[in-house]
C-alpha cells in the first residue's frame, strides 16, 4: 500500500495546472482519475492518456472502484483526481482512506458560493467537508503553489478558511 497519496478535487480533472505543476512538484508516479463520466467515455480516457506525461502511470476508474485500485498499487506517490466533493465522499464510503483533501478547482454553479476565484462550494459540500474535518481530516484549498487555505472551525462551530 502506498504511503504518499494525494487526493485532489478538480472538476477539470487532468489539465494544464496538474500536468505542468502538480505532477512534477509532487513527483507523481501514478495518476488515478476517479470519475464515472471519464471512466465510461473512451474518448475522454484517450484524451487524458494523451495529456499525461510519459513517466506517469495513468488509470481512469469509476469512483466506486477507486479504493480497490489504490489497494492494488505499489507506486510510491499517487495523485488521485476527483471531480467534486460528493465523489470524494463516495470514494471514502467505498473504502478509500485518506486524511487530507485538497480542493484545486471547483467551478461556480447557482447553488455554490465563492470561496476563492477557483473554488466555489454549496452548503451541502461545506457540510461534508466539515464532517471530514471533525473526524480528524485536513481540508485545504490549494489551486496554485504558494497560496494555501485551511478549513478550520471557529468558536461558533462555523467553517473558517485560514491562510497558513
Amino acid at each position, binding site marked *: 500500500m502506498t504511503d504518499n497519496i494525494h487526493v485532489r478535487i478538480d*472538476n477539470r480533472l487532468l489539465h494544464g495546472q496538474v*500536468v*505542468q505543476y502538480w505532477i512534477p512538484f509532487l513527483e507523481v508516479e501514478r495518476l488515478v482519475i476517479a470519475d464515472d463520466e471519464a471512466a465510461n467515455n473512451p474518448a475522454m480516457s484517450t*484524451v487524458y492518456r494523451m*495529456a499525461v506525461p510519459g513517466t506517469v502511470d495513468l488509470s481512469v476508474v469509476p469512483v466506486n472502484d477507486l479504493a480497490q485500485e489504490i489497494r492494488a498499487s505499489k507506486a510510491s506517490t499517487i495523485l488521485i483526481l476527483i471531480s467534486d466533493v460528493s465523489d470524494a465522499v463516495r470514494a471514502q464510503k467505498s473504502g478509500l482512506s485518506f486524511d487530507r483533501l485538497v480542493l484545486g478547482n471547483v467551478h*461556480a454553479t447557482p447553488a455554490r458560493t465563492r470561496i476563492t*476565484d477557483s473554488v466555489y462550494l454549496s452548503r451541502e459540500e461545506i457540510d461534508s467537508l466539515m464532517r471530514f474535518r471533525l473526524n480528524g481530516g485536513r481540508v485545504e484549498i490549494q489551486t496554485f503553489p504558494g497560496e494555501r487555505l485551511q478549513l478550520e472551525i471557529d468558536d461558533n462551530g462555523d467553517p473558517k478558511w485560514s491562510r497558513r
Partner: protein
Amino acid sequence: MIGIIVFCHGTMAQGMKHAAEMIVGPQPDFTAIGIEPGHGRQQVSDLLDTAIAGTDAGSGILVMTDLAGGTPCNTTALKMGKGIEMLAGFSLPSLIKALLSRSEVADPRELADLVSRYGRQHMTTGTEMLRACGRVESDHD
C-alpha cells in the same frame, strides 16, 4: 475557407487575435475564446461549441490551443473529427501562418501539419539571429 479558433487560458486568445490582426488586418471566420478560474468542464465545452457554430464557414475548423494537456487542448481533443483539427502550443508566428495559409490547403488537418512545422521552426534567440547574419563568430562564454 477553414475557420480558425484560438482557445487559451485567461485572455491570451483575445490578446493573440488582437496581435495577429495588428499584423495581417481584420480576419473573417476567426474567433478567440478563453477559460477562466471557476469554469467547469461542461461550461468550457459549451463555450467551444458556441465558437465552432459561429466560426464554421463550411470547410472545417482548426482550433489552436495554448498548451498540450491543458483544458482548452483536452476539450478540443474530444471534438476532433467532423472537420475539426486541434493544434497545441501555438505562437504568434504560427497563428499568422495559419491565417495566411488557410485558403491554400485542402482541410484543417493539412493546415495543422503545415502550421505546427512552421511554429517549431520559428522560435529563435538573439544570438541565433545574429549568427544567421554573420555578426557572431562563436558562442560568447
